[in-house]
C-alpha cells in the first residue's frame, strides 16, 4: 500500500507541473475579425472606359474577399465585376468587368467596391495592378488605378 501511495504521489508530483505548463502554453487568443470595404478607382484620362481587369494583392495583413460590388457610374453599377475563381482558389484576387453601354465614364470613377474580411490587428496594405483598361473597340487605354480604403459605417 505504501509503495502504491508513494508511486502515485511521485507521478503526480512529476506530471502536475507539466500539465500546468500546458495550460499556460496553449491559452489561445482569437484574433479579431472585422469587415471593411476597399474602393477601386480608375481614371481613364478622358477616354471612355468600357472594360477593365485588375489584380489586388494584400502585402500586409490577412484579408479575404467576401463580396464584390459595382461602381458609381451606371455603366459599371448594376452588374458587379466578375472575379476569377481559379485565381481565388490560389489566393489571388483578379476582378474584371465590361460594359456595352453607350454612356461610359471618361473621368476618374469608382468602378468597384471589394468587401473584405480582415483578420488580426495588422492594418492591411495592398498592391493594385491594372492589367488592362480598354475602350468600346477594345483599344487599350492609358488609365491609372487607385485604391481607397473604406470602413464600416
Amino acid at each position: 500500500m505504501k509503495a502504491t501511495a508513494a508511486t502515485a504521489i511521485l507521478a503526480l508530483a512529476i506530471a502536475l507541473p507539466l500539465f500546468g505548463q500546458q495550460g499556460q502554453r496553449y491559452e489561445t487568443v482569437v484574433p479579431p475579425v472585422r469587415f471593411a470595404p476597399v474602393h477601386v478607382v480608375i481614371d481613364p484620362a478622358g477616354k471612355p472606359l468600357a472594360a477593365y481587369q485588375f489584380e489586388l494583392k494584400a502585402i500586409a495583413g490577412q484579408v479575404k474577399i467576401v463580396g464584390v460590388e459595382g461602381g458609381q457610374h451606371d455603366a459599371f453599377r448594376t452588374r458587379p465585376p466578375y472575379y476569377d475563381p481559379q485565381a481565388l482558389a490560389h489566393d489571388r484576387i483578379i476582378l474584371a468587368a465590361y460594359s456595352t453601354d453607350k454612356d461610359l465614364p471618361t473621368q476618374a470613377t469608382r468602378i468597384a467596391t471589394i468587401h473584405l474580411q480582415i483578420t488580426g490587428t495588422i492594418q492591411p496594405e495592398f498592391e493594385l495592378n491594372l492589367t488592362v483598361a480598354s475602350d468600346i473597340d477594345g483599344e487599350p487605354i492609358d488609365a491609372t488605378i487607385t485604391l481607397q480604403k473604406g470602413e464600416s459605417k
Partner: protein
Amino acid sequence: MKTLRILRIAIGLTCMTALFVALWSCSDGQFFTSQLETQSTTPPTETEELAETELAETTTKPETILPPGTILSSSPALKEKLGQFPESTTFAPIMADGTGKPEMQYPEYWKELPPGTFYDSESQLRMNNYALGTDGRVPTLAKKPMVLGRMFSYRTTAAPGQLPADLGYVHIDEVWVIAKPEVTPSAPDEDRPGCGAMLVKLPDEEKELPLPLKHTDVNGSIAGYIATVHVTQQFHNPYDEKIEAVYVFPLPQNAAVNDFLMTIGDRTIRGIIRERKEAEQIYQQARRQGHVASLLTQERPNIFTQKVANIEPGKQIDVDIQYFNTLGYVDGWYEFVFPMVVGPRFNPPGSTEGVGAVAHGKAGISGQKTEVQYLKPGTRSGHDIALSVRIDAGVEIEQIECTSHAIRKQQDDREKMTVSIAPLDNIPNKDFVLRYKVAGDRVKSALMTHRDKNGGYFTLMLYPPESLRQVRRSPMEMIFVLDCSGSMNGKPIAKAKDAIRRALRKLEPGDSFQVIRFSNDASQLGPKPLEVTEENLRKALAYVDSLKGGGGTMMIEGIKAALDFPHDPKRFRLVSFMTDGFIGNEAQILAAVQEKLGNSRIFSFGVGSSVNRFLLDRMAKLGKGAVAYIGLNDDSTTAVDLFYDRISHPAMTDIDIQFGAMAVADLFPAKVPDLFVGRPIILTGRFQGNAPTEITVTGRVGGQMHDITIPVDPGRPNAMHEGIAAVWARKKIEVLAMQHMYNSDPDLPETIKQTALEYNLMSAYTAFVAVDSSRITEGDHGVTVAVPVPVPDGVRYDTTVQH
C-alpha cells in the same frame, strides 16, 4: 528492491505522462478536439435524394424506437440472414405494433402496417433506407417466428476494389427509366394546403405578420438543350426587429449553380465561392457583427439552404442564383423541370444527417441536421412564385404542354416561344414541368461548345440514327429472373408474374427465353433457353403460375443463373430482373453484374411500393439497359408494352466515337451507353482544336457495323454556350462524389472541393457567401425565422410531417 520497484513505476508513469504531453504539444493543443471536429464537421456527401413519396405514419411512441444496432431476435434464421450484411451494417428495428415485443409473427405484421409506410431511398446515399413494409420487405425467412422491425437501415462501405469501376460513372440522369408514376396536375383550390394566409407571431410580439420570403421569380432561357435559369428570392422583414431568414429550397439535381448576387436597395454584391466551412464562419462572424450577409449551402445535390442575416425592419433583400442544366429528352420531347418545394423526407432512426420534415414552429424535433418546416393544411404563407421560360429551340417547336401548371404562351416565331405560369397558379407547392416537341425529322445530333483560358468544353447530344426506326430488331434471348423471396410474397410477386406473362406473349418466332426464379437458391424452367413455340410458352406460363414467394433474397444466385451460361451469338440477350431489390449487398451484386455481363443487356422491373431504386438504377446503367417501376396499384402490362416498344428496334451497341480534329479528354460518361430509338444520350468533355471536323460514331446494329457522321464546327458562334464549362464541371463533381461513396480515397473530397472552387460551383464542400462590409446595422443580430413551405401537392401533411 522495493525502492527500485517504486522508482521503475515512477519512471514508467513519467514516460506515459511525457508521451501524453508530447502528443498534446505536437498537435498544437488540438489533438483531441481535431478528432472531434473531423467527425462533426465532415461535409455531407453528394447524395441522391429520397423519393418524395408519401411517408409513413410516424407517430410511433418514442419509447418503442430502439437504438440503431439493436437486433431483437433469438431466431437463428434472422441472425444468419443479418449476418449476410456487411460488417458496417447497422440495424434500427422498431416494432410494428409499437410495443417492441419480439413475438409478432410475419403475417400479422404485414397486415397491420399502413400502405405506403415504407420506401427505399432510391438513392446513392451512403445510408440507404430500407424498410419492412406492406409488401413484406423482410430480411429473413417469412415463415418462421421472428422479430420484425418496423424498419431497418444499413450503411455499406464496400471494400476497395469490390465495386466495379464503372459504377463511378453511373448517374441517375443517365438511367433510362421506362415507366414511372404519373403526376396528375390539379387546379388551384382554396381548400388545399398552400392556400389561405399564413401568419406568424414573433416572440413577445402580438401583431400577426406575413413571413420573410415574399416572392420567388424564376427566369429561364433555353438554347438548344441547355437551360440558363435565374432564381430571385425576395426576402423582406415585416417585423419590428431584425431577423435572419432561413429557407430550404430545391433546385434540379443536375443544376450547376455558379453565380450568386445579393441586392440591398440599389446596390448589388456578388457572392464569393468559398470552402463551405470557411463560408459558414464568415457568414456567422458577419451576422454577429451586424452586417447584412447571405449564405447559400448545398444539403443535397437538389436541396439548398439560403440564409440572409440582419434584415432590418421594413427592408428587402433579394438573392439571385444562377444555374445551368441540360434538359431531359425522351421520344421527341424536351423536358424542363423546376422544382418548387422540398418534399417531406423519411429518415431512418438514428440518422442525423437527413432532411427532417417538421411542422411550422417545431424546429429541432426531427433531430436532423437540415429541417424543412411545413405549413398546416389550409394555411399558406404570402410567398408566391412567378416563372417564365424562353425557348429558343433552333428548329420549329411543334407542340408544347405543361402537365403541372396553367400556363401562358407567347410565340415569338416558329422556333422561339415564351412560356409563363398563369398568375392564378402561383403557389409554389409542386414542380413545374414543361415539355415541348420539335419538328421530328429535323432533330439532329448537336454539339455545343465553350472556350476559355482553360481550353474548350463541349456537350454532345447524340441522337440515334433515323435508320434504326426502319429496322426490326434481331431475334433475342429473353431471360426473366423472378425474385421469389419472402418479401415479394403477395401483390409484388403477382405484379411481377403478370409482367412476365405479358412479356412472354409478346415474344416472336425466332426468339428464345428462359425463366429463372431465386430466393435462397435459384432454379429455372429448363436447362437452356427454350425456342418460342406454343408448347414452350404454355409450359412457361404454367411454370410462372406455380411460383410463390418465400425464403431469402440470394440475388447473386439469380445473377449467376442468368449470366453464367454461354451466349447465343445469333440472339441479342436481354436479362430482365423482376425484383424489389431489397438486399443489403448491392456492391457485391453490382460487381457480379459487371463481371458477368458480357454482351447481355439488363432491363429490370422494380416491383413494389418501396423498391430499391439505388440498386435497380445502377443495374440498368451497368447493364446498358433500362428500368421500369411498377407500383402495387399500377398496371404491369403498360410497363411491359412500353418496354417492348423500346426494344422493337435494334439498339446501336458497342459504340465508339472518334472526334476527328477535336482532341477530346475527360469525357463523361466515360463508357458510352447504347443508342435506342427515341432516346439520345448527352456526352460532355473537354477538347482542343477549333477547326470544323466530323465526329464519327460507330456501333453495331443487329450484327452489322454502322457509322453516323456528324459534321461539327466547334468554333461556330451560335453553337457556343457560356454554361458548358459549368455543366462539365458539375458532371465531374457528380462522378467524383459517386466514387467517394464507395471509395475511401481521402483525396476525393479535396478534388471535388478544388474543382468546385475553380469553376465557381456549389457542391457539398463549397458555399457562396456575400457580406455587405460597408455598413453595420443597429442592434443585435435578431431572431432567426425559418420560412415554412406547403407540403407538395398530393402529399398528406398528417402522415409526413412531424408535429
